[in-house]
């Protein structure tokens, strides 16, 4: 595929990195230095120029492109770039926006602005956060097969009831599959005898109910989903959307915002949320409002340093679970090392969503795990697939590289994959595989 990417920021770079090995990628960025740097960093063609100008796009040969991704930091530039690309040729266009407004317009008419697919980073991040909040202990969650299947990654701690158990013993749920284990920097493809150790990160694939039940087992002292005391610190757009989505689920979060006008605006927009206007780093205030009794605290301040400070404070006060948004990709690990339960980077989430969509030809859906060490993919089997009509047990033996089929859906119903299950044409399969074998796998499908 010929792919044109406008904007070489963190999002654009992450997407290019993922697509470059198997596609022809051209990146356009306003900053000539940035474009120059990237030329050596990645195996792509780079250009400097304004992505909204027809001339630049012509030079980038947009008219012949199959896929056009506009992911600069400027919403309007992205929309105009997509519109311009559509006048030049007929690539599939993907636009990244921050504002929910454009997304709403686009959802009214799926061809608005000449955009074929729109990714709203703030909403996407908020959705991610709300999913994580909904499942205690989960680090990452993604829906597959239209929501029938869920993939979740959990960190197994010392006190967890399944620590030390074998996979065969821990996997008590009919429609749940242990797809993989991350231990340190290694990936383990688990067999029934593999023992789970503290510090492992387990990837499970199954029905949303079974994932939920599994999460309950992991954290038996908590009643999940009833994270009734949710505190959001920082009324950023992500904080706002998270509160809005929580309201939609019937919860009444508390939101702390320092700026007076912003707090007032949020209070007007969020009728079910208790909005407070105060310095969130004031410990006396946090004690007075009994923040320590919160089940979950989301730090969503725009500045990473303040976010970290609040998150650490909350941890020290005794909040069960602290989720933080981190703008700078490099700090994600730092946050998690310090003890923040989940650190979410909006750009990573956005890039993941765009990549997920770019694979559409073969894989319909995808999750990138542990900084792209492994991926979970969903694809539909077509008539000439090599996987058809063979029991899964035999596939395991035949295929040289390791992979795990986590779930199979047939006619929108989940079939738990067993050794004797035969795959058929039209099945959707959700597969866990190491990133280096992704292209081998997609060839088989």
């Amino acid at each position, binding site marked *: 595929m010929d792919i044109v990417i406008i904007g070489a920021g963190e999002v654009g770079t992450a997407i290019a990195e993922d697509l470059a090995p198997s596609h022809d990628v051209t990146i356009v960025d306003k900053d000539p230095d940035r474009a120059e740097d990237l030329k050596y960093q990645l195996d792509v063609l780079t250009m400097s120029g304004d992505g909204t100008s027809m001339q630049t796009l012509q030079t980038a040969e947009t008219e012949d492109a199959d896929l056009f991704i506009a992911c600069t930091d400027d919403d309007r530039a992205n929309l105009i770039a997509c519109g311009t690309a559509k006048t030049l040729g007929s690539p599939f266009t993907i636009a990244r926006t921050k504002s929910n407004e454009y997304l709403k317009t686009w959802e009214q008419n799926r061809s608005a602005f000449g955009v074929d697919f729109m990714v709203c980073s703030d909403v996407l991040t908020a959705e991610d956060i709300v999913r994580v909040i909904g499942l205690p202990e989960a680090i990452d969650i993604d829906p597959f097969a239209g929501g029938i299947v869920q993939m979740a990654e959990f960190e197994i701690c010392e006190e967890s009831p399944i620590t030390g158990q074998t996979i065969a013993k821990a996997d008590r749920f009919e429609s749940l599959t242990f797809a993989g284990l991350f231990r340190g920097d290694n990936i383990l493809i688990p067999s029934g005898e593999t023992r789970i150790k503290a510090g492992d990160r387990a990837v499970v694939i199954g029905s949303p109910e079974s994932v939920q039940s599994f999460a309950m087992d992991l954290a038996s002292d908590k009643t999940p989903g009833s994270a009734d005391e949710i505190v959001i610190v920082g009324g950023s757009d992500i904080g706002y959307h998270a509160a809005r989505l929580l309201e939609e689920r019937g919860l009444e979060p508390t939101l*702390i*915002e320092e700026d007076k006008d912003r*707090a*007032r605006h*949020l*209070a*007007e927009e969020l*009728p079910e949320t*208790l*909005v*407070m*206007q*105060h310095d969130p780093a004031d410990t006396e*205030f946090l004690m007075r*409002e009994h923040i320590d009794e919160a089940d979950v605290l989301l730090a969503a301040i725009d500045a990473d340093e303040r976010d970290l400070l609040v998150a650490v404070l909350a941890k020290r006060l005794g909040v069960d679970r602290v989720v933080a948004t981190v703008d700078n990709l490099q700090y994600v690990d730092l946050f998690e090392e310090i003890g923040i339960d989940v650190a979410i980077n909006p750009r990573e989430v956005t890039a993941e969503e765009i990549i997920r969509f770019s694979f559409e030809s073969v894989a319909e859906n995808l999750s990138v795990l542990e900084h792209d060490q492994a991926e979970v993919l969903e694809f539909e089997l077509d008539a000439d697939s090599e996987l058809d009509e063979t029991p899964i047990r035999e596939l395991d033996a035949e295929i040289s590289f390791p992979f795990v089929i986590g779930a199979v859906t047939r006619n929108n119903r989940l079939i738990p994959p067993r050794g004797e299950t035969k795959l058929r044409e039209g099945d959707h399969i959700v597969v866990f595989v190491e990133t280096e074998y992704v292209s081998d796998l997609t060839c088989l499908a």
Partner: protein
Amino acid sequence: MTWRIDWRASFGVLGTILTYLALTMLVPLMVSVVYMEDIWVFILSIIITVFIGLGLKRLDPDPDLGPQEALLLVSLAWIAAPIVGTIPFLLAGIGTDSTIGLQTGSFNALTTSVVNALFESTSGFTTTGATVLGDISLEQHSHAVLMWRQLTQWLGGMGIIVLMIAILPEVAVNGAELMRSEAPGPELQKLTPKIAETARALWIIYFGFTVLLVVILYGLHVAGLALGIELAPNMNLYNAVAHAFTTLPTGGFSPKADSIAAFSAIVQWVIIPFMVIAGVNFALFWHVIRGEAELLYKNSEFRTYAGLLAALFAVLAFLLFGGAVPKTDPGGVTNGATENALRQAAFQIGSLMNSTGYATADFAEWAEGGTEAQFVLLFAMFVGGSAGSTGGGVKVIRWLVVMKAIRRELYTSARPDVVQPVRLGGDVVDEDAIRGILVFTLLYLALFLFAAVFIMLDSARIGVNLTVLESVSASLATIGNIGPGFGKLGPFGNYLFFSDASKLLMVGLMWFGRLEIVPVLSLFVVGVSDSS
């Protein structure tokens, strides 16, 4: 920059308005021709009014209204219309012992008769319904004069300015500003992009309901005659029109001394829903007509209004059925009499809560069995109608906002960091609007209390000793545009015994209660502080 106002422009437009107001006197003129009474009175009144109007118009033939001039115009119009309205009363009463007729015997008699006429006319245009007529009867007054008295209420109900905006293009230019000042309630709802169309829509709905009531009332009368049964024997065409004219504007005047008690039970039942309708925001009916009926029951003010009506009705019906009041005349026995208890409760609450002021029972006499039933009525009088209705009082929406603002203050005093906007049915109420509503409500209560004290002292000066309930109800019934009070001011009493000073104060209260204009008062405040 000094603050100045182009008062000539306001007077110029006022002239136009008065000229057209003279045309409304054609209605009583027609009545006078039919009954062959007082024809010359109305011909002369029309000539005088047109003359005044044309004279004022000469002050500024090409008026250009700014926002301040618009405010001044509205306040002037509501002073000028009642003044012009006195002309037929004064002329028709010359040489009779009518209390509102021009008496030339002595200077005192002259001023008192003029004040009385002004009181009656203001009470008419402001839809109050308090009367100084010593004798309400067709022997004392002609059909035409009493019809004019009814018509003043009908004109004042939806608003003279709104009517003029609807029909006169030159007034419509600054119509939005004018209408905001005249419309009851904290804000103006524009229904259509053009203000003249909004005004027309409101008047058409108002007119429609009035016609509907006339048809039902007179229909009952005719049906009763045809079937030979007593359905509505007293409700002839004259009475049907006269009462429709004062039901929809929540007025309360009646050409009958016994008010609605003069009519059959079925007439009373028919009038109840129309009084309730008159207290609803007319903009809501506009939405209903356009097929958006859900807006009616989703509207939080309407729901509160309906809820309060139902609750007060239930309490009063329970009290009446339980025998809280003795037999009254009119009104009859309610103790244990189901239909009568329900009817009297529904009628009195429907009449007093939204400030109509009709009565079917002499609730001034209810005190004899204990005052609890009267206090239910007093509470109802405090509530008022809805914003955008023809009702008076503080208005339901203001009380809602005041209550919510108080609750918010109490909550945030315990948790000062919480940011909590006041919401009405999901919509956030602007903080400036809340402040405006609080100031208005406070001003209303302060004026009401001040007036109650003044009326009590002033009456004692002329040798009339009022009870607390009487003076409080005199003040409340006039500022709330309700009409009847308690004691001597009961629904079958009158305001004749007050001194001229008290009557003039009440004229001011009625004016303030109808226009609710804090901005007009601010015109005075700014004007005074600038000139000093």
